[in-house]
């Protein structure tokens, strides 16, 4: 059976540290998170016992691969919305809770932006006058350093990993035409040194060096093979996707995750195998596509043909529509959600062919490009102007008064009140509900949590672990009544056993 596309997003934010913190980004990230976390849950830690980012989905150990180290000594906080907020490699990172579908993941990603903004405001009050910590939701500093926005999707272990290699990579390489966040200049191994500069579609494309691999920090692969399901290993994989740009535009995040969830279901159903999408050089192509805003870049297929990113996207969409009309896309979500994804996907591909600027209220890269062009025209300047580079950076500034994105009046898909609620309340649809509610109801008795367990310590008795191997159990439907019947953690543990 194809599992529901339970999903989530992890975003590393760029950060600038004030003088009083020695300009140290790690200290600033810790300070930022501490300033946000309430005292009641400050002592609850993340449980690292089962973390193993070195396991490879291909089923072998790559002796040369260097998986990222787990850093338990750095600040790790859990949130009552079921998410995680922590310091990762000198960046503050927010991970959404597990969400039932992509719309919910978008909601919790946006709640994360609010959390980071509140953290900045709180920390400003604690710092010396005139100092502040500033965070940016982007993926590059323009100086060859990149940090990620990772997506996670639950997929069936019964699907051979090679199927994802064959049929997901072409999607990951080409979806940037609507998921890109836009960037001025080129970076990475293939940066240009011809004295010219360009506006490119994606922040991230420059940083990929391999098609498939385990690493996320060096030799970054288009398809990451980390095999750490945080759930029943015999049934599931958690596909960890690292190519995406961090989006501010709601439509862009919705499409990034929506189309990917659809493609994953199609792969698991085995209906894409007739498509000839074998790419000759995906690393070269992910950069080639990003660097051509005319969208005319043609990539070579192994069968000798050449094709544009948009044409590949149309092929996926046609397959999705065909499948959806016959069988539905129930792993992706209710039918109105699947329909919304397919309709928006088609709308965006059509508009990208006709006039990219018609999408300036929907897509980050188009919105940024339009403003950059208009600025250059008004001030008779070009992409080398530091003011233009400042626009590129300030588009992603999380300070409301400095953010350029906030001024662009982009299309929204969420109600503001829902985002506000998602800052503190977990989704009711997955095991994140159990995690978040335990933190809200029994903060004094929760010792630590992980994605797949909650560890209790009641009245200094023995530690008791409640496992959560099934991502859909622990939802309000499963556990809401039981929680309501349990005024204390002791009651809860008793009721769970009986």
């Amino acid at each position, binding site marked *: 059976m194809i599992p529901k596309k339970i999903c989530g997003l992890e975003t*590393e934010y*760029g*950060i*600038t540290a004030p003088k009083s913190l020695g300009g140290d*980004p790690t200290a600033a990230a810790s300070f930022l998170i501490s300033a946000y976390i309430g005292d009641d849950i400050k002592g609850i830690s993340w449980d690292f016992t089962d973390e193993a980012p070195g396991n490879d989905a291909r089923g072998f150990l790559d002796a040369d691969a260097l998986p*990222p180290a787990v850093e338990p000594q750095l600040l790790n906080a859990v949130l009552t919305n079921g998410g995680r907020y922590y310091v*990762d*490699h*000198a*960046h503050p*990172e927010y991970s959404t809770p597990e969400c039932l579908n992509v719309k919910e993941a978008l909601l919790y990603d946006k709640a994360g932006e609010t959390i980071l903004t509140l953290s900045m405001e709180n920390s400003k009050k604690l710092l010396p006058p005139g100092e502040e910590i500033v965070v*940016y939701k982007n993926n*590059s*500093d*323009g*100086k060859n*350093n*990149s*940090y*990620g926005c*990772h997506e996670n999707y639950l997929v069936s272990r019964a699907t051979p990993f090679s199927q994802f290699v064959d049929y997901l990579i072409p999607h990951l390489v080409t979806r940037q035409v609507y998921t890109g966040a836009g960037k001025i200049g080129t970076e990475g191994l293939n940066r240009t040194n011809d004295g010219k500069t360009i506006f490119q579609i994606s922040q991230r494309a420059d940083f990929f060096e391999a098609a498939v691999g385990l690493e*996320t*920090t060096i030799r970054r692969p288009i398809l990451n093979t980390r095999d750490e399901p945080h759930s029943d290993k015999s049934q599931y994989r958690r596909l960890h996707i*690292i190519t995406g740009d961090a989006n501010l535009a709601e439509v862009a995040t919705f499409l990034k995750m929506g189309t990917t969830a659809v493609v994953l279901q199609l792969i698991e159903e085995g209906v894409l195998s007739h*498509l*000839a999408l074998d790419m000759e050089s995906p690393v070269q192509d992910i950069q080639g596509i990003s660097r051509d805003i005319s969208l005319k870049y043609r990539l070579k297929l192994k069968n000798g043909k050449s094709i544009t990113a948009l*044409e590949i996207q*149309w*092929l996926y969409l*046609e397959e999705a529509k065909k499948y959806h009309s016959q069988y539905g896309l129930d792993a992706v979500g209710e039918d109105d959600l699947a329909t919304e994804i397919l309709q928006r996907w088609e709308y965006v*591909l*059509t508009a990208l*062919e*006709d006039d990219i600027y018609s999408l300036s209220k929907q897509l980050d890269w188009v919105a940024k490009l*339009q*403003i950059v062009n*208009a*600025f250059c025209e*008004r001030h008779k300047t070009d992409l080398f*102007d*530091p*003011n233009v*580079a*400042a*626009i590129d*950076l*300030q588009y992603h500034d999380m300070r409301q*008064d*400095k953010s*350029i994105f906030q*001024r*662009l*009046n982009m299309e929204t898909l969420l109600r503001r009140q829902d985002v506000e609620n998602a800052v503190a309340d977990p989704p009711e649809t997955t095991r994140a509900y159990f995690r978040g509610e335990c933190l809200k109801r029994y903060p004094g008795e929760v010792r630590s949590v992980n994605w797949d367990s909650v560890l209790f310590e009641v009245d200094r008795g023995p530690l008791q672990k409640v496992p959560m191997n099934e991502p859909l159990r622990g939802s309000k439907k499963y556990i809401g009544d039981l929680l309501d019947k349990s005024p204390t953690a002791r009651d809860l543990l008793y009721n769970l056993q009986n």
Partner: protein
Amino acid sequence: MAERELKKHSASSHSENTATEEDVAVSTEKGDKLKAEIDDILDEIDEVLEENAEEFVRGYVQKGGE
């Protein structure tokens, strides 16, 4: 088959381009509105852009992540 479908898409997205005078008037009006909106945004950007853009951009250095 794939190529045929692609042509069909291109055709369908461009085929209804027999614009009437009314359409042109509407699109000019829309264009003017858009231009006015972008002008307003540019005014705001001129105000919020970091004062010393060069130093600001140079100073934004991150450690690689993930």
